[in-house]
């Protein structure tokens, strides 16, 4: 028998009375990723999926999908054998024989079933001995093995060579909801990914400045959101018409305050959408000091327009670190497409890096804030992204 052996974050298994609900959510998310008909078997600290009827391609597709589910630590494709040391050893030998290039190995054992007569060390050494007997010209190397044979003794014995690393984190939707300000850049998708990894359900918001930004810029954000949905299952995206607000600010406010006032509108609109969506937080991709709008003073002034926590998971990261994550999660290549920032009209020559709240607030008096924000929210286009592609919920 063959099974996928799914390890999940110890953070989940260490939960107290809530553990069951976290595990159930994780199972729900795994099923959503691989198809609801899948039977996920729950064991203490592990989950199993029987894969006897599936082809190798189907299995590797399944592994790939499960590896994107937050909360999963790793996936192993295991042979399931009786809890008998000889059978375990033979199974390991058979697996190793399929890999003729491997010269050195070691056995790593986890004994979940404490009733099993041998302890972990003893199991490893017995299995190692059987492998040495069965597989010609192979050696044990405890420190630097080319291959690790994993043995787990639980309800059955599990033997597997390769362990596919997953994202870790907490099950998606286990930690409330947040509104992600998604531009088309490198940072904001990473910020969304990081918060989603901690279990926060993400609703994305994009500010569209037609005709100053193109349909392709919007498509790019849609593509980024659907990339994120590979991890989250699905994602809702608000496309907020932003031109009128920008034009009004340009006409009625000081040039050096354009950026800060614009940011405050973005936050206020996201806050309004949060109320609508029942979300209790905002998420931005800001990193301290990266650009003029990301100074501490700017963050202080922008945060004043909302009454909920603003998560900035990248605040202490360097650009290089952010780019690394963005490459790893697959958003980088979309982010670097050139469609954004075609228009410099909204970027002041010398933006204020240390705006003062009282100054900004008095500048904003020239604007009909309430109506501008309401109009923008009401005229938003809402798109749902996920495995079913793009689904427009409401049009602009």
């Amino acid at each position: 028998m063959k099974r996928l052996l799914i390890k999940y974050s110890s953070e989940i298994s260490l939960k107290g009375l809530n553990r069951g609900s976290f595990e159930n959510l994780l199972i729900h998310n795994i099923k959503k990723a691989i198809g609801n008909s899948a039977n996920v078997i729950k064991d203490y600290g592990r989950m199993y999926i029987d894969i006897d009827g599936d082809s190798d391609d189907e299995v590797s597709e399944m592994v790939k999908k499960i590896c994107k589910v937050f909360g999963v630590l790793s996936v192993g494709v295991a042979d399931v054998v009786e809890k008998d040391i000889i059978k375990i050893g033979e199974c390991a030998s058979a697996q190793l024989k399929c890999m003729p290039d491997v010269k050195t190995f070691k056995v790593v054992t986890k004994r979940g079933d404490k009733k099993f007569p041998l302890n972990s060390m003893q199991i490893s050494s017995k299995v190692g001995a059987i492998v040495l007997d069965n597989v010609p010209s192979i050696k044990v190397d405890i420190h630097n093995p080319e291959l690790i044979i994993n043995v787990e003794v639980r309800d059955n014995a599990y033997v597997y060579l390769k362990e596919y690393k997953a994202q870790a984190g907490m099950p998606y939707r286990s930690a409330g909801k947040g509104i992600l300000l998604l531009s088309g850049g490198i940072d904001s998708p990473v910020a969304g990914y990081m918060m989603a990894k901690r279990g926060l359900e993400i609703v994305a918001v994009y500010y569209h400045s037609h005709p100053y930004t193109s349909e392709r810029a919007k498509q790019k954000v849609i593509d980024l959101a659907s990339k994120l949905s590979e991890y989250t299952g699905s994602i809702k995206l608000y496309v907020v018409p932003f031109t009128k607000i920008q034009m009004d600010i340009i006409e009625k406010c000081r040039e050096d305050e354009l950026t800060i006032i614009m940011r405050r509108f973005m936050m206020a609109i996201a806050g309004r959408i949060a109320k609508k969506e029942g979300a209790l937080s905002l998420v931005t991709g800001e990193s301290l000091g990266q650009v003029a709008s990301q100074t501490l003073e700017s963050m202080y002034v922008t945060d004043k327009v909302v009454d909920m926590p603003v998560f900035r998971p990248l605040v202490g990261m360097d650009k290089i670190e952010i780019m690394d994550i963005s490459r790893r999660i697959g958003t980088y290549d979309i982010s670097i497409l050139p469609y954004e920032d075609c228009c410099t009209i909204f970027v002041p020559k010398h933006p204020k890096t240390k705006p003062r709240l009282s100054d900004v607030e008095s500048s904003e008096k020239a604007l009909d804030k309430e109506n501008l924000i309401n109009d923008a929210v009401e005229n938003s286009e809402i798109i749902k992204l996920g495995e079913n592609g793009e689904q427009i919920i409401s049009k602009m």
Partner: protein
Amino acid sequence: MGIIYFDNSATTKPHREVIDEVAECMENHFANPSSAHRLGLDAEKKVKVARERVARLIGSSPEHIIFTSGGSEANNTAIRGVVSPGDHIITSKIEHPSVMKTMQFLEKEGCEVSYIGVDSRGIINMEELKGAIKENTKLVSIMHVNNETGTIQPIYDIVKAVKEKNKRAKIHTDCVQSAGKIKIDVEKLGIDMASLSAHKIHGPKGVGALYIRENQALRPLIYGGGQEMDLRSGTENVPGISGFGLAAKMISDDMEGKIKHVNEVKSHFIDRISEIDGAVVNSPADDFHLGNILNISFLGVKGEVLLHALEDYDIFVSTGSACSARRAHKNYVLPAIGLKPCYVESAVRFSFSYLNTIDEVDYTIEKLKTILSFLRRIKK
């Protein structure tokens, strides 16, 4: 008003008849023209008729035409098929990327390339050209009509100048923008090779042709079954080729009438654009510019922003510079005719087909007024 499509130099809408012909070929003439049976012969006939029609479009005969996957492949075949490392090539500074990038590639391969400048109309500097011709000049590749400004090069004079100094130099002309838009007679022009594309004349995409004068020693880019006189292997794209043939025939019918109409559309546009402040015509209506292409700079407005604003009224145009294209690329054609950056950034290309109307121009002018007064609200 429906869709106003003023982006005909990017591509044209295929004629209904062309679509039907393509479908008909896929449905009923699907055999491989190389097959020995009668269905093969039937498909071969489709290709034969198309070859005659395309040849006629440029005053040539069918044995000089090979079909390709489009204008870019025709350009690549013409250039890379002729030169070898160590050869000298002459081209202009305003060629299509499929020529320009090929030249840059060949420079790395050990060819020497002279890029000839153009004047403010976009016309090649003839003295510079004459001065560049050398003993080992193997190829001169100059486009007939530029895709952004519509400038028409004096190909006849160019050929004469080149042949006077170097008889063996081959002359290639990219006729993708000119074929079907002005009368072309490759024999009279005396060029050795000419590139054509179907989708610029209401034909299907993915098909083009290269005209090759006799006695050309051309190396193919694609080797294989030896189709297209051994110069372009690969099973013929019969539906595309047949659609191309039909499009060539349709554009040839009353071509003079079509040209006259397009010129009227352009002239009317230029007349009316005077109602708009800060609109500078970069491609006037004269003998040096094609009637199909009108390039205008709208000062103080980014071309790309104007493009997106026009979309709201279902008016579709192009900009040369901008990142709205697949990759952010710098426009090199408009600076080459001496336009300053602010004129380049604000340039929009309206490109017409004979199917466009005066009414469409009037509607567009009205919309331009509305849009510009909105966009110019902000001075920056």
